[in-house]
């Protein structure tokens, strides 16, 4: 069974002949409990897909359904849509309201899930902080008092509070340092096993996507050029562009070799 279905999605910027087709007839499917990785370079349209799937942008054509329900239309009430799909953003410095404490932020998300009294919401927030390996005292902190990695954990907790059917994660580790990125990836990997999350995981970093996703879709100029199981995409790419992408990933195995001066295209 699929959790998220994106069908013939097209997004155009502008009108008429000068319009830019950012997303061009894209089909994607995230299995229930599965993680689909979406890789591509800047301008490939992957972030536009994220925004459309999350309901922050209207598609020019095509549908997005979660659990069989269309989430692109206006008719779906905001609260119901919130319980179907949530998004984690790239920059943990800007995705949290600087004027709300971590506790308030998470409790607001809990309120979006169901009506609860204040005590139940506080308890819920504590549980969630624990789930993302943060101390309960963090609830009183404002975002500026936290480091980047901790903020991204708060953003993940806010997302989990709603218990959405599908999570869209858009470049969530690219603003983090290498030493912090690993722990966030480990957290998502553990949560996935614990909670059976269904996720659309978007990144420009092929190695990161491969680590977390079961399947990978490769995007280029608004189209999906190749889709398949992660290891096949990485180790046996069929499309020329995928091969270029894989070949361009810098690797420590190449350290000290003449990789840059040979095989010049």
């Amino acid at each position, binding site marked *: 069974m699929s959790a998220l279905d994106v069908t013939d999605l097209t997004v155009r910027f502008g009108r008429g002949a000068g319009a830019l087709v950012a997303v061009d007839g894209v089909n994607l499917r995230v299995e229930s409990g599965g993680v689909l990785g979406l890789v591509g370079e800047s301008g490939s349209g992957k972030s536009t897909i994220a925004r459309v799937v*999350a309901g922050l942008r209207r598609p020019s054509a095509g549908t997005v359904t979660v659990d069989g329900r269309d989430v692109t239309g206006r008719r779906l009430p905001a609260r119901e849509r*919130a319980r179907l799909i949530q998004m984690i953003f*790239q920059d943990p410095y800007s995705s949290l309201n600087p*004027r709300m404490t971590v506790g308030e932020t998470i409790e607001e998300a809990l309120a979006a899930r169901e009506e609860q009294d204040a005590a139940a919401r506080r308890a819920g927030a504590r549980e969630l902080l624990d789930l993302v390996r943060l101390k309960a005292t963090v609830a009183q902190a404002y975002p500026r008092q936290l480091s980047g990695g901790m903020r991204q954990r708060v953003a993940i907790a806010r997302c989990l509070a709603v218990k959405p059917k599908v999570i869209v994660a858009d470049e969530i580790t690219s603003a983090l340092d*290498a030493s912090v990125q*690993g722990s966030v990836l480990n957290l998502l990997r553990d949560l996935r096993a614990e909670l059976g999350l269904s996720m659309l995981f978007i990144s420009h970093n092929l190695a990161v996507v*491969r680590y977390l996703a079961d399947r990978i879709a490769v995007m280029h100029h608004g189209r999906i050029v190749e889709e398949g199981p992660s290891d096949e995409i990485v180790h046996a790419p069929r499309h020329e562009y995928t091969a270029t992408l894989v070949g361009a990933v810098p*690797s420590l195995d*190449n350290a000290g070799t003449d990789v840059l001066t040979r095989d010049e295209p």
Partner: protein
Amino acid sequence: MTARARLFRAPMTIASLVLVCLFGILAVVAPILWGEEALTARPTELLQGPSAEHLLGTDNLGRDLLLRTLVATRLSLGLAVLATLLAAVAGVLVGGLPAVLGGRVQRTFGAVINTWLAFPVLLLAMLVAILLGAGTTTAVLALVLTMTPSFARLAQTLASRVGGSEYLAAARMLGVSRRRQFTRYVLPNIAEPVIVNVTISIGGGLLALSSLSFLGVGVQPPDYDWGRLLKDGFAQVYNSPTAVIGPAVAVVLAGVAFGALGESLAGHLRGQDHGHTGGRRGPAPGPGPGSGPDGGQPSTPDTLLEVDGLSVAFPGEHGWVRPVRDVSLTIRAGEIVGVAGESGSGKSVTMMAIAQLSAPGAEVAARTLRFGDEDLTLLRGRALRGALTGVGVVFQDSLTALNPAMRVGAQLAEVPRTQRGVARRQANRDAVAALDAVAIPDPARRAGQFPHELSGGMRQRALIAMSQIGRPSLIIADEPTTALDVTVARRVMRLLRRECDRTGAAVLVSSHDIAVLGELCQRVLVMYAGRVVEDVPVDALRDPARLAHPYTRALVAALPDLDSDRDAPLATIPGEPPDPADPAPGCGFAARCALATDRCRAEVPELTGHRHGGRVACWHPQDREVVRS
């Protein structure tokens, strides 16, 4: 705030605050104390100059001008405050609400505000005021009409930042109501600058209201404010020029007080935003104690750059912040050296300090900073610039690093023109040739374009061309591939490598991705907490067991690659990088290091030779067989 900052900033805040409070007290008290007396006409003392009895003289009815000025405080200030507050509320609603109402509403309101701002509203308001009858109410209304659009513009600018923010997007996705979006997200995040602006605007409102009264369309007799008093005084200016002194001083003083208070508040806000207000405590720290003959690498005849004991300090909120401490390195001619490190490691600050491009206010100290035959620490001004023409610099963000208001070709041609006095036409030809050399297609056309008309990869190539055009023997490239996609980054790396092979220039290149440096460089310096912790030949990176410093090992292990085991958790480094403003003694990595001992937490290890052919600064290097020289 530091003592120095307190000394300079606080007096202004305190003085203006005291003045504002005094005016406030006067506004409340003066009419009660002297309201009656200020109206007392003295037919025998008309239009008198200053005297002991009437310090500022009397008006044409013999009323005491000092008392009248004091009593007028209430009306003058009250009206200004009222008008400003009304305008602020109206402005915040007009400018702030659209942020939660969607793009179309935002654009419409934006156009309305722009047009409104361009209106000579005060003139129209005067027209309205005359027809509705000149008076206090219409003057205040006129002022509200005038001030609303500037508040709206401010609120709009601030709110659109909130409106485009990811935290508001997250709130929308949670289904948070628009009302709550406005009250909990938009308002708190725009409140402070708006409040500051209210304070500043009260001063402006005071002046505007007094202008209206001065013209005779504001406050009408028998009421009087400062503007009215000025009008009456100016009518008698040739008889008793001192009559304008009281209200003039009052108007200016009140304007200055509110303006200064607002400015100091704004300065405080800006300081908060930028992290440091620039206070200083004591002199800047100099270079550390000499690390001895075995510390730095011995300089050889082909040494191009020699840096020893480089420290950089910035004035911070709590005294000096030292993002770079005691860095030593050498580069031989034609060598490609990488600098790896996370954000806050000090790698960019180091590179900019070597290139003599530190931000203004930074204190750079070094025992040795030698480039070629020149000791850069001894040179100043033109001589320093001359010596540094041999250093080309490539920056990280090619969009911001190029001047948006200048054609690409002109930005390149500037180098030969100013450095070597090449004629304009020849310099332009040089620029096109340089663009051609970095494989930019149709270079002549591109030279005539502005930076935003080029793609990111092309701009980065143009930057590399710019660094090459002065024929440097050293290129300093600060994260040249970070902002680029992998395929574009790969092409830029190839280009950099090829250009060096062609020109024989040496390169010092930084990246947060150690894998990038492994492919590009011959040697990599790993930085952590402002120091070089390991200096390693790149072939050692292929085999983590050969790496000596625990941080380098952890960094390499934490990097997922295309062969990482998906069933095992990634290696991580516990904790967070240290804050350069709050350094711990000893080894910077000790707090996160599994091998740390008391010695690590107390003493800074020095860079010493290691058997992988490089150097390491660690009390417990992983590969124990250290070669002591």
